[in-house]
C-alpha cells in the first residue's frame, strides 16, 4: 500500500470536485451535479488497485473513481461544460461519462452499475482472464431489482466482480435505513456472496478489504460485496435544498414551511396524530441533514489521511502543490473556450 499515492489520489478527487462545484456555482454546469466529496477514501482505496483491462461501472456520483482511474481531467470537465470536444462530445454529461479505453461507464439509472459491471466481468472472464470488474453503487440502489438480481447472477456465474457499496446514510432526502430491510451485508451473504463491511473514511482499511476481494476475483474465486460506510458531505447534489435549509434555516426553510404549515392546519385530512407524525418526521430528516450536511470536518476522510501523512510532511506538501497545479491546469484548459458549453 503506497500511502502517499493514495493521499495524492484522494486529494486529486477532492480538488476536482471543488473545481466542479465552483463551475457549477458559476452556471457553467447544468442539471443535477452529484459530488462524491467524502467518498475519496473508497475511490482511492479500490480504484488504485485496478489495472489494464479491468472494468469499472459507476453511478451518478462518479467523479472520484474516474479521477483516480486516470481518465483525463480536462476532457471530463469540458464534458460537464457541454463542450463538443468533451470526453463524450458534450453528448453524455455528468451522469453519462464513458471511457472505452478505461472500460469505464457511468449511468444515471439507480442500480444499473451492477449489471453493467457483471457484463464487464463476464467479458473479462472470457477474453482477458485475470482481469476483473468493479461496480460502485450507493446503498439506496441496493433496493433496485436489477442490482439485487445481479447479486445472484454474479454468484451463479461465478463472475470476477467486486461490488463496492457506499452507504452514505441517504438516498436523496430519505434516510437509507428507513426504507431498507435487514443489513446489506447479510443481504449479499444471503445470495451466497462474500460480503463484509469497512469504514469508508479510512483509506487503508478500504485498501486492505478491497485487496482481498479483488484478489479473489482475479483468481476466479467469484464475486464479493464490500459495504463502505461514508459521510455525505455535500448533500445529494449541488444545490440540495435540504443542505440549503440546514445552512440557512430561516431564509430557505420558510419557503417550504409556509406551504407545509398551511396544509397542516387545513380542515380535512389526517387526524392530529398523523399530522404531528408527519411534521415530526420531517423535522427529524431536516435535523439529520443539518448534522451530516455541514461539511463537518470530523467525518472528512481527507482530514484523516492528511494526518496519517504527518510523518511525510515534505512529501505531503509537494503532493498538495502538485495536485493544486494539476487541477488548476485542467480547469484552465477546460475553460479555454467556454462560450459554447455554457448556459443556454
Amino acid at each position, binding site marked *: 500500500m503506497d500511502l502517499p499515492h493514495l493521499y495524492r489520489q484522494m486529494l486529486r478527487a477532492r480538488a476536482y470536485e471543488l473545481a466542479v462545484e465552483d463551475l457549477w456555482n458559476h452556471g457553467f454546469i447544468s442539471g443535477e451535479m452529484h459530488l462524491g466529496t467524502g467518498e475519496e477514501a473508497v475511490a482511492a482505496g479500490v480504484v488504485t488497485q485496478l489495472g489494464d483491462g479491468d472494468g469499472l461501472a459507476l453511478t451518478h456520483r462518479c467523479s472520484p473513481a474516474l479521477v483516480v482511474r486516470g481518465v483525463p481531467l480536462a476532457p471530463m470537465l469540458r464534458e460537464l461544460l*457541454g463542450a463538443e470536444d468533451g470526453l463524450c462530445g458534450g453528448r453524455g454529461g455528468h451522469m453519462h461519462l464513458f471511457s472505452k479505453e478505461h472500460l469505464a461507464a457511468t449511468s444515471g439509472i439507480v442500480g444499473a452499475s451492477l449489471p453493467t459491471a457483471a457484463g464487464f466481468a463476464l467479458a473479462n472472464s472470457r477474453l482477458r482472464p485475470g482481469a476483473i470488474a468493479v461496480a460502485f453503487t450507493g446503498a439506496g440502489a441496493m433496493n433496485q431489482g436489477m442490482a439485487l438480481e445481479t447479486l445472484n447472477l454474479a454468484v451463479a456465474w461465478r463472475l470476477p466482480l467486486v461490488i463496492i457499496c457506499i452507504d452514505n446514510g441517504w438516498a436523496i432526502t430519505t434516510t437509507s435505513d428507513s426504507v431498507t430491510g435487514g443489513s446489506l451485508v447479510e443481504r449479499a451473504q444471503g445470495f451466497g456472496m462474500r460480503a463484509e463491511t469497512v469504514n469508508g473514511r479510512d483509506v487503508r482499511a478500504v485498501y486492505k478489504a478491497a485487496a482481498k476481494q479483488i484478489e479473489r476475483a482475479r483468481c476466479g474465486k467469484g464475486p464479493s460485496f464490500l459495504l463502505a460506510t461514508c459521510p455525505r458531505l455535500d448533500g445529494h447534489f449541488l444545490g440540495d435544498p435540504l443542505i440549503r435549509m440546514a445552512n440557512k434555516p430561516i431564509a430557505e426553510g420558510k419557503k417550504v414551511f409556509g406551504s407545509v404549515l398551511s396544509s397542516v392546519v387545513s380542515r380535512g385530512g389526517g387526524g392530529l396524530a398523523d399530522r404531528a407524525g408527519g411534521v415530526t418526521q420531517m423535522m427529524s430528516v431536516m435535523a439529520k441533514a443539518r448534522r451530516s450536511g455541514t461539511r463537518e470536518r470530523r467525518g472528512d476522510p481527507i482530514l484523516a489521511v492528511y494526518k496519517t501523512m504527518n510523518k511525510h510532511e515534505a512529501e505531503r506538501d509537494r503532493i498538495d502543490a502538485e495536485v493544486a497545479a494539476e487541477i488548476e491546469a485542467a480547469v484552465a484548459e477546460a475553460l479555454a473556450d467556454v462560450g459554447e458549453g455554457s448556459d443556454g
Partner: protein
Amino acid sequence: MQVISFGQAVDRAIEDAMVRDETIVLIGEDVPMLRAPLFARFGADRVLAAPISEAAFFGAAAGAAMAGLRPVVELYMVDFIAVALDAILNHIAKLEAFSGGKWRAPLVVRAPSGAGYGDGGQHGQSLWGSLASIPGLTVVVASTPADAYGLMTTALAHDGPVIFMEPKLLSEECLEFLGRGGRDTVTFDVPADGGRGVVPDPPHAIPFGSAAVRREGADLTIASVAVGVHRALAAAAILESDGISCEVLDLRSLRPLDVKTVVASVGKTGRLLAVDEDYREYGLSGELAAVCLEAGLSPRFDRVCVEDTLPYARHLEKAALPNVDRIIRAARELVNA
C-alpha cells in the same frame, strides 16, 4: 381566480381529492419531502416513502388499486418507467380485459417528463408515444396549471389506470430541484403561460379525450402537447407577421386522442405540423398522420420532434428539442412549398 404554479396545481388537485376521498394514497421515493404539505396534512399512512424499487412499488400500487385504494404513484422522471414497465404494460393496463371487464383498478402514475434543463439523455425523455400505444391505459399531458389541475382531478376520479405526465420545464418546483438548485447563474426557457397560470375557482375537471384549440388559424394546424404547445404558440405569433395563420391544438390527452378536433382543424387548414418532444418515429406524429388519412384527409404534413438520444450540452439539447425556430422553418415550408 388565482395564479399558481404548474407544480402547485398538480399538488393541489391531489390534496383536494385526498380530502374528499380517503382511499387516495401517495406512493413514491422521497414523497414525504417532495410533497411535504401532503405528508404533513395526511400523515405517513397516506403518503408512503418507497425504497428505490419502482418495479415493486408500481406492482404493489397496482395490487392496492385492485384491492380498493386509489394510489397515486410517482416516478422521479418518466425515463425510469423502464424499470417498472411490466407493472404497467402487463398488469394494470390489462386487468380490465383479462377479467372480462369485471375488475377495474384506479391508479394514477405521476411522471415528470421532458428536457430543457441540461440533464442528459436518460433524464429528459417523454416516452408518451410508447405509453399511449398500450390498450387499457389513459395517457394525459397538461400544458398549463389549469389543465394540470383539471386533468389530475379527472384522473383521480377515474376507475382505470391513468398516466399523468408533468413536463418538468413547466414545473418551477422540478426545475428548482433538478436544474437551478438555488443559483441565479442559470436560465431556462420556461414558457410563461405554462409555468404559472390561473386556476379557475372553483376549478373544474377536464374530461379525457378533449383537445383544446389554443389559437385559431386558417393556414396550418400545429398539434402538440406540453412544452411543444407553447413553442407552437410562440412560433404562431411570429408566423402571423409573415401572413401565416396557424391553428394551435393542445391535444392534452393522447389516449384517448381527440380525433374529432384534429380532423376538424386539419380539414379546415389542409396542413398539419406535428410538434413532439417525444421521439419522432413510431409515436405521436405518426398517429396524427394516420388519423388524418383515415378520415380521408390528405394534408401537407411535417413533424418537428426529437430525432435522436437527447444530448447533454445545453446548446445541443436546445437544437434537438422542438424549438421555435424549427417550428417556424417547418411551418413556412409547409405553407409556401
